[in-house]
Each structure stands twice: as structure tokens, then as C-alpha cells.
């Protein structure tokens, strides 16, 4: 069902709208993310970034408009259906399984995608392919030392790493990360950006980010969301030069961006 215009696009939003009561939060958002591209979604507080993520990942249904994953419409689908089609997301507040160990969390993240589904006639310990992949992810997110620790005993940064680990474990090829580095120290953030680069290698990435250092270091293109509309979607250089962005953003974010640039 892939038409010439959608070919090569991993994720596309068409005239996406979402209202809560009388308030319209997302107002005709449009976005076309190419396969393999890394896109940062920025915007002032209350612009609707998290809502947009919730609409894409199926947590909420849009009021109108379309979401296409690899050219297929996914708006109105359930979260698990969207996930099975190859889109995985992380959460702004760590959203894990607190009474399971780090390893178990990762393994839960990849069971479905490795075809184990609802089986209750096979032992987890005998699923070599699943366990090997879980160990691999454990190394990728650098939590080997904490393999058998319960999530509730992890540090904040470790929980953030595991959040990303559970998200990418399932092998989805479109990854949505919601403020992955929020609340981290500067050195933690730098390491984490490296980690995100590694684990999303070859995948399509859409990430909400406030830290402009991270945005310019990670993104191929930047989408700017203001009042529920994507007002600019371009390379970092062009977005920085964009008059509308400057206007909408004047003050906080632009100042941050310049500070980050000066710091580099």
C-alpha cells in the first residue's frame, strides 16, 4: 500500500489533530521521517510533544488525521498492535517492571518480537536465542553488573538506561524516545547520547529532547513543535537560522542552543 510519495518514509503524520474537550492540543501536525533518520522533536513546554508521542504510539487515539508507519495507517490501533508492526517507545518517567530483575525486564521486552507470544509450554531458561539476545542488550546498555538486581534498586540513570534497553530490545525499527536524558548530569548525558547512538544504529529515531547539546549532537533533522503544529522540520543549521523558530522560541530555547554551540 506504499505509494510513491510514502516510499522510504518510516513514519508520517498527516494533518494530525487531538482535542481534549474544547482545547485542541495537536493542531494539524505534519511530519515525514525517512527510514534510518534521527529526528529530534523540540518545542517549548506545553507544545504537545508528549501528546504527539502518545498519538503515534497508540496510547491515545487522534481526533482526526493520519499516522502512517512504513506507509500503513496505524492511527486508532492498540499500542501492542503498533508495537508488533515495529514501533517501540520509551517513557519520560521510567516505566518498568519494578519487581522483576534487570535481565527479566529486558527479556520481557523481546519475548513477543522473538515469537514466544503467550506460550506456557516452554521454559524461558531453554530459550537460548531469547536469552542470548537479552544478554546482548544488557551489554549494550552497560548494566551487566546489575543483571540480577531488582529495578526498584537501580539508580536513576540506570533506570533510564534500562528504559531505553527495554524499548530497543524488541527489535522495532522505529524508536520513539521521550526525553531520554531528562534529569541526568552533564557527564551522564554525554555517555547516554553515545549509548543512544549505538543502540539505534540503523533504525529510525524520533526523540523528544530539551538539552540542545544533545539535539545538535544526535539529530539529522530537527522538528519544531509549537502549539500543536510542526512549524519547522529541517537540518539543525537551517532550523537555527529559521525566522519562525526564532520568533516562537525567542528567549529560552534559542539562548540554550547558542550556549550549547558556544560550549562545543
Amino acid at each position: 500500500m506504499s505509494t510513491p510519495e510514502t516510499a522510504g518514509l518510516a513514519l508520517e503524520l498527516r494533518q494530525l489533530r487531538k482535542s481534549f474537550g474544547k482545547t485542541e492540543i495537536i493542531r494539524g501536525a505534519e511530519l515525514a521521517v525517512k527510514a534510518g533518520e534521527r529526528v529530534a522533536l523540540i518545542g517549548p513546554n506545553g507544545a504537545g510533544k508528549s501528546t504527539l508521542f502518545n498519538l503515534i504510539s497508540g496510547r491515545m487515539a487522534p481526533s482526526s488525521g493520519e499516522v502512517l508507519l512504513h506507509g500503513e495507517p496505524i492511527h486508532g490501533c492498540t499500542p501492542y498492535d503498533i508495537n508488533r508492526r515495529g514501533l517501540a517507545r520509551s517513557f519520560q518517567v521510567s516505566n518498568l517492571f519494578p519487581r522483576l530483575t534487570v535481565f527479566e525486564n529486558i527479556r520481557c521486552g523481546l519475548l513477543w518480537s522473538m515469537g514466544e507470544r503467550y506460550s506456557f509450554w516452554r521454559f524461558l531458561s531453554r530459550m537460548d536465542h531469547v536469552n542470548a539476545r537479552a544478554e546482548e542488550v544488557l551489554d549494550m546498555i552497560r548494566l551487566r553488573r546489575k543483571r540480577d538486581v531488582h529495578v526498584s534498586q537501580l539508580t536513576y540513570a540506570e533506570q533510564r538506561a534500562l528504559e531505553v534497553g527495554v524499548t530497543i530490545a524488541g527489535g522495532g525499527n522505529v524508536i520513539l524516545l521521550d526525553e531520554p536524558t531528562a534529569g541526568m548530569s552533564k557527564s551522564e548525558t554525554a555517555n547516554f547520547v553515545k549509548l543512544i547512538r549505538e543502540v539505534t544504529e540503523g533504525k529510525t529515531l524520533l526523540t523528544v529532547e530539551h538539552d540542545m547539546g544533545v539535539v545538535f549532537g544526535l539529530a539529522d533533522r530537527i522538528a519544531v513543535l509549537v502549539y500543536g503544529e510542526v512549524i519547522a522540520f529541517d537540518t539543525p543549521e537551517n532550523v537555527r537560522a529559521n525566522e519562525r523558530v526564532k520568533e516562537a522560541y525567542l528567549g529560552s530555547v534559542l539562548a540554550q542552543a547558542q550556549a550549547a554551540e558556544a560550549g562545543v
Partner: protein
Amino acid sequence: MTRDVYQFRPLNLGRWLLWSAFAFVLLMAPHVFTSSLSLTMLSQMGTAIIVCLSYNMLLGQGGMLSFGHAVYSGLGAFAAIHTLNKVGAGEWAVPVSLIPIIGGLAGLLVASLLGAVTTKKSGNTFAMITLGVGELVWNMSLMLPEFFGGEGGISSNRVVGHPFMGITFGPQIQVYYLIAVYCFICTVLMFAFTQTPLGRMLNAVRDNPERVEFIGYDTQRVRYFAFMIAGFFAGVAGGLYAINFEIVTAEVVGAQRSGAYLLFTFLGGSLFFFGPIIGAVLLVLASVMLSELTKAWLLYLGLVFLFMVMFAPGGIASLLMMNVRVAAHGLLRRLLASYAALAVTGAAVVAVFAAMVEMVYHIKLNEALGPMMKFAGMELNTRSGQTWAVAVVALLVGVGLFELVRRRFARQWHQIQEEIEARLARVPVV
């Protein structure tokens, strides 16, 4: 790159030892407790273990608080007793030893029908729907006396069909071993379930249903499948119940029985797989022995439950495991004196409190027998102010002493936990 980690699988010796010990206990129990009362109780414990473990699939492993688990064990029992009667009438040919499986299939069938409704929701909504479904089935049992047997229930005779190798299931000991075999197999199967993808995803659904949806799983399906499996094992227990008692009345599907499963599974400990086994043993001990001992047994049970929920929400199993952890670090010896003191003062408080409760019951229920009452070898005058004064003073002193001991214990316990944490974190204790 880490594949080699999983190619080496040593035999899990500890696990084998535990299962062997469990089988050994099941095998030897009737040779240690030989009276006919204990054989009856052991048989009941076997079925209770299956049903409490199946209940914990929902409560402990899936975070589903069901108020209607007796529906599945109860309808399994009815299916089994009707099958037994058909076999007795020569209409069906099913060996008696396989009738519990018929009970299980009935439990599975009912759970697949009702579960489709109940597992649509989780949390409070799930709990309330199970309560409603329980009431529904209970009312149906009154409306359909053909199936449920009305007031008298359905009775049967388990000595039917051809004896196999001399086993007729006439003597209680043969029934006990039938139950023991089922109990062992069902326990193994239910433990195995916890080690499978569905079993693990059930834990994930308990911990965080929302996230489960974003890793490809339909939480409703996970709950539904687990619910059906729990229904199957509950039905097996019901089938064994039918064979054991040879009579099934409508109360087996009632709310009181569902409540008992919930209470004792919780009491035993829902956080550990083996917790419900402890709960099941206590369930039978309480309902058979405690109820013989005193009319106030439900009051005591309610109090125990109350204290457990407030002070040890992990049940007996978690209390046990906390002490196992302390023992593993070689620190249990330090607590022994405190435990002894706790036991002595605690027992004194319980004894005095029980004496007062029994005196009240005596006044209310046995007025005609006069004011004198026997309690623990003593003659108590329930109408004398002196008796009450002594009891109240003894209770206050007991509670005071217990509280002193408890504070000392709490300090020690806290210190030991800190030492263990420090050891685990490999930080030297200052």
C-alpha cells in the same frame, strides 16, 4: 557473544532436593499422623494446596484480586460428582482416578466463559466483577436444584467401576494417595508455569500493565489465559474434593469459600510460590481443629488476618524468607533471645486475651451452665469482678512487656538489615 553462558546448565541441586522433600512429605505424612482424623485432614490439605496455589496465580503472580475463585473449584466438584454418578450408573466409563481431570476441564470451561468477561478489566473493576459473578453462580445454584442438588447437595459413591490393581478408592488412605499424586503433579506444573513466557508476562502485567502494551502484549489476553489455567487447577482440586467427600453441596461455590481461599493464600504469603502451600495447611487446621476448639474461631481468624495485613503483608512465607536471609548471613543467632522473649510474652498476651474472649462467649452462649468455665485447666468464674480484674491487669502487663521486647527486637532487626545491606554493597561496616 554471550551465548556460551547458556550452554552450560548445571543440575539445579537445591531445586531437586526441595521437590524430593515435598514428595517425601506427601508420601510419609499418613505414616506419621496415623489417626483417621489426621488422614481426613491431610486429604483436605492436598486439595487445599492445589486450590490455593491456583488462586495465587491470580493474586500473587497476576495481581488479580478475585473474590470468586470457589466458582471454579466448586463447579469442578459438581462436574466430578455427576461424572461419578454416571460411572456408577454404568452410563459412562471413566476411571475414578481420572475424574479430577474432568473437574479440571469443567473449571477450564467455566473460566473460559466467565473469564472472558472478568479479565476485560484489572484492579478494582476486576475484583468487583468477580464478586458479581460469584453471586450470580451462587444464586444459580439455588435456582437449579437438578444440577446443584438443592439443600441436600449431590451425593455419590466413589467405589465404582473396575478396581485397578486392587485400588477401589474405598479406604481413605487410597484416596489420600490419589490426592497426594495430584497435589504433587499440579504443584510441579504450576511452578513450571511461572518459568514460561506467559508466566513471566503475567508478572509483568501485575507490575505495570501499561508498559506491557508497548512491548507487544495484549494485557487482557495475558490475564485471560492465566485465568483459564487457574480455573483448570481449581477444577482439579474440586474434582478431588468430590471424590474425597462423596457429597457436594451448593456452598462449595459460595462467597465464604472464595473468601477463605483469598484469606489463607494471603496469610501463607502471595509473594512466594510456596506461600499458598503454608496457607492451605493453615486453612485446614483452622477450619477443622480451631473450629472444634472454640466457638470464637472466626473472631481469632479475623484478628490474625488483620494483624497480618497490617504488619506482615507478605504473609508467613515472607517472614520465613526474611529470616532465611538473616540466617544465610549467619546473624540469626543474635536474634534468638529476642525471639524467645517475643514468643513467651506473645503467648501470654494471646492466652489472657483468649481467656477474656472465651469468658464473654460463655456469658453470652452458655448462661444456663452457670458462671463457671474451664479454660486451659483453670476454673474461671465469668461473673466475678475479681476474675475480670486479674485478666485485665494480666493483659495490660503482658502487652507492656511484649511492647518492650518488640522494641528491642525491632532495633536489633534494623541493625542486622543494615549490616546485610552493607555487606551486599561491599562497604565495610563502620
